[in-house]
């Protein structure tokens, strides 16, 4: 069996940020991702980031990714396994993987799960036909592969992903006539909403999709208004021609591996679903198994970078390494993270963390 000191599962913003401090102290790090590219969702984020300079604010996600990869790629103590899917995780810290149709196991001393999240779907008639896509998936299709999802897209959901992807669809030359939101107010940042509204996107509250029309792919969306209990109101239906329906209706943490290994999880709606119970050092209920980033609760990429940085330092300390200035860096990072979670948009995560017993 292969041996590894630290295995990081997921090479998105959290995993990449965690790798750096571990590599700095000389730990042997194996970074695994099922995609062919490092960066997770950063690979498609063409927009400028929010936050402060410390989280590379104002830089585009794709450029932040380059900086993060450059910061680690030359370390001799780094092993990168891309196109590698972790198919099993066990409490004795055995990680089983599949790469190029070959199955192999890694015995790790420390494991960090930074697996991220997957996009949720929405129940409505015909929601399974081609042309009904997750908004983030469409963002990947456009910004990583240079392919348009269609010519005319209806966006469902007014969170930041829905708003940002609408804008990026238009940048790719795709029409976005309409964005629907079931709630009575826009849930993402208003600056993003204003940015697409002035480009002509009709943003409608208390409205949702009733069904998709089309045989083998989407030809139109039937939408309707919702009452205060989010129930569709008969008689308000309208049919809007489109070839793509994008769903931006939230994310769910990918905690399957943690659950398989027997880590304690708790369902916390505000954090997106089942999340691992972690302590303030980002360690799960399993010894030497850590979790950070969206898998530990859905937030923004800037928060994932900070939590990854903290988790990386915490693992280094637990493994007995001396981390220069850890006593200064850790409180500063925790402070920055708290700061990102302040304000009205951080309320959900604050409530969620309280329920989880972390905050």
């Amino acid at each position, binding site marked *: 069996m292969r041996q590894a000191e630290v295995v990081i599962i997921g090479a998105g913003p959290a995993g990449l940020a965690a790798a750096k401090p571990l590599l700095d102290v000389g730990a042997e790090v194996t970074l695994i991702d099922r995609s062919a590219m490092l960066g997770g969702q950063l690979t498609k984020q063409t927009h400028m980031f929010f*936050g*402060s300079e410390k989280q590379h604010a104002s830089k585009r996600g794709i450029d932040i990714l380059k900086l993060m990869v450059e910061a680690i790629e030359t370390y001799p103590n780094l092993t990168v396994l891309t196109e590698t899917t972790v198919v099993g995780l066990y409490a004795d810290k055995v990680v089983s993987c599949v790469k190029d149709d070959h199955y192999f196991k890694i015995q790790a001393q420390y494991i960090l799960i930074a697996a991220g999240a997957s996009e949720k779907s929405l129940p409505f008639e015909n929601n399974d036909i081609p042309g009904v896509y997750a908004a983030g998936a469409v963002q990947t299709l456009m910004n990583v592969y240079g392919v348009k999802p269609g010519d005319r897209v209806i966006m469902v959901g007014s969170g930041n992903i829905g708003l940002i992807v609408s804008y990026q669809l238009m*940048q790719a030359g795709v029409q976005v006539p309409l964005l629907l939101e079931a709630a009575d*107010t826009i849930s993402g940042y208003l600056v993003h909403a204003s940015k*697409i509204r002035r480009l002509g996107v009709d943003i409608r509250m208390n409205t949702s999709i009733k069904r998709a029309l089309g045989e083998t792919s989407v030809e139109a969306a039937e939408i309707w208004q919702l009452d205060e209990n989010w129930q569709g109101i008969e008689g308000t239906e309208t049919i809007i021609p489109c070839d793509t329906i994008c769903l931006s209706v939230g994310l769910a943490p990918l905690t399957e591996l943690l659950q398989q290994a027997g880590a304690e999880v708790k369902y916390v709606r505000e954090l997106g679903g089942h999340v691992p119970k972690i302590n303030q050092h980002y360690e799960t209920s399993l010894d030497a198994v850590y979790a950070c980033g969206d898998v530990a609760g859905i937030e923004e990429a*800037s928060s994932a970078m900070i939590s990854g940085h903290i988790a990386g330092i915490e693992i280094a300390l637990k493994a007995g390494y001396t981390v220069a200035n850890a006593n200064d860096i850790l409180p500063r990072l925790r402070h920055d993270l708290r*700061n990102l979670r*302040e304000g009205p948009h951080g309320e959900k995560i604050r409530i969620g963390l309280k329920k989880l017993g972390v905050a």
Partner: protein
Amino acid sequence: MIEKTGIASLEQVKQEFPDKVVLKKPKAIIECYKEIPCNPCHTSCPFEAIYIPEDINVRPKIDFDKCTGCGICVYNCPGLAIMVTQIKDGKIAMRIPYEFTPLPEVNQTVYVVNRAGERISEAKVTRVQISEKQNKTALIAIELDEQYLYEAITIEVHHGS
């Protein structure tokens, strides 16, 4: 109501503008109506004209005496929520952020749109700024009638004309 439509009300917009006398010189107009954790406008301003405290969720405050209308905050704002405006000879000269292709050309006539995305006027492009440090957010300068001061927000480039 902006929370439901994405469109700021005229009242909200006016609150972000200084007195018209001040606009004889170009000034940044910041339309960041709700607290978000973000501060590049503050850290990018070379004149310390935009202030956000330690808690980066606090909305930016601009000191129009210090603002030179340089436009650096315009392309550094991740929300594309800043423009530069000036009134001269009964016309307004605006510089807005623009991230679409193709870029308009100088002297080209473009549509001016309001916050609801409706065409309200036409304007001539007077300058197109796209340097390396702007990192692909162009600044488009246009000139239009003063009556659109609180309405004009971006442009729509004519296609196929």
